[in-house]
């Protein structure tokens, strides 16, 4: 195993996923899938990486940084495409990580991939959202990489982002049927709320949370996204704000000067609360999450973006 592989930490994959998904909403879908496979190639020192979505045997994006695939002749390329499609198909069927050794004739396939791509091991990750595999990422690393549970969990988190981007049900829901208002002040207010709504939509798709709420630090409800719930959002907002205020004061007593978040953990659900610009609270209600630390980082990223919007609402004297 190389020095690089020895030094690889489980948390590294979360940074990769975070960096990728943080850009998911800023670039066109086609560019995002290309960036995804290129970033994975670079992270895992792979000679090739491909993304498969749906049941198509053809990859939607391919990264080939050393032009190893480009140098293959027609027959070799066809053979590689077949192996790649078989790997993707295997993980789509049962939704678990697979290697080339799991395929029929695994030893022969591994020898072939080692010869043409210099790949020590070949992996295929399932992309899962809402409990179903809808695609796969195939990876051909040139060095043996110590894949951990964190790698599998982190990479599966990408599934939510791709699923949302592919089905076009994510950001922009509010703006799909806007109500035209005549007042300039109301129009500005509407625009800011639409922006806030988009950020909340993006966060809920990234985290697969049940609900995301934005509320004033005094407990006044501002916006909510996610599942329909039985409880009153404004009552819940009041409780979140009072709990956060008590927690912040307790943290202050014990010396915390920059306490920005708290987490409440229960059997059936969890609540992550993060401060936004000293004036608002971002509240994420979620069930079992594969990577809570990733959820915290996504929430922090959303809180920073919301902070800008909130400041502009205050500057415009709209709040």
């Amino acid at each position, binding site marked *: 195993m190389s020095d690089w592989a020895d030094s690889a930490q489980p948390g590294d994959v979360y940074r990769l996923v975070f960096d990728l998904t943080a850009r998911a909403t800023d670039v066109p879908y086609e560019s995002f899938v290309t960036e995804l496979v290129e970033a994975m190639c670079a992270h895992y020192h792979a000679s090739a990486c491909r993304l498969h979505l749906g049941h198509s045997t053809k990859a939607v994006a391919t990264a080939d940084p050393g032009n190893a695939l480009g140098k293959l002749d027609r027959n070799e390329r066809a053979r590689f495409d077949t192996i790649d499609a078989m790997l993707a198909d295997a993980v789509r069927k049962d939704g678990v990580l697979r290697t080339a050794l799991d395929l029929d004739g695994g030893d022969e396939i591994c020898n072939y991939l080692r010869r043409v791509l210099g790949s020590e091991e070949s992996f295929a990750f399932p992309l899962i959202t809402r409990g179903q595999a809808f695609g796969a990422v195939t990876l051909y690393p040139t060095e043996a990489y110590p894949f951990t549970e964190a790698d599998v969990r982190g990479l599966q988190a990408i599934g939510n982002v791709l699923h949302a981007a592919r089905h076009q049900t994510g950001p922009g829901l509010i703006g799909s049927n806007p109500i035209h208002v005549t007042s300039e002040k109301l129009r500005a207010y509407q625009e800011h709320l639409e922006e806030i709504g988009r950020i909340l939509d993006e966060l809920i798709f990234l985290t697969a949370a049940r609900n995301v709420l934005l509320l004033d630090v005094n407990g006044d409800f501002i916006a909510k996204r996610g599942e329909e719930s039985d409880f009153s959002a404004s009552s819940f907002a009041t*409780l979140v704000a009072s*709990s956060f205020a008590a*927690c912040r*004061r307790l*943290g202050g007593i*014990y010396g*915390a*000067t920059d306490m920005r978040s*708290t987490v409440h953990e229960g059997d*059936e659900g969890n609540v992550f609360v993060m401060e936004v610009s000293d004036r608002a609270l971002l509240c994420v209600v979620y069930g079992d999450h594969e990577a809570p630390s990733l959820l915290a980082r996504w929430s922090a990223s959303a809180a920073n973006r919301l902070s800008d919007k909130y400041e502009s609402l205050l500057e415009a004297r709209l709040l």
Partner: protein
Amino acid sequence: MTRGHGPDRTVFYAREIHQMNLVLGKFLQKSGAETVLLVDVAGHLLTRQGAQSPASEDTITALVAGNCAASRAMATMLGTQEFSSCIRRGGGGHLLLLPAGDGMLAVAFGDDTSVSLVRTYALEAVRRLNPILTRELGDPATGEERIEKDRFEAEIDDALTDVFG
């Protein structure tokens, strides 16, 4: 004996407080936490073990009770039983709040011990505290105690050793 002022305040006897202290002392010893406070639902301090708190304990217990009430109501709304809260404190470490009986257990600990380790020991301590808090062992005032003091100490010591090693 701790006497209550309001009709809803539970009265605990010295023997019960001693039993709680035994459980909490063992918890501190095993988990490596700095301080543990047991607070009732109204914000009264039942007992404390470990280092002195950095501020007035009345303030701390009132805040713990406030958080307890809010998080319990949030948990009910979400259909879950109870919430435990974890707060990052200054200079490293955390403050962990766990429901215990009608009240709450507040544990302060440094970065030298992990949240999950403290949570595991704290949950076991809460399990041991619940029979005392709910008087399942009998009301000392009515003489219906089923376990004698010396025997209780020995039994709880053995039981905690079994669990914590």
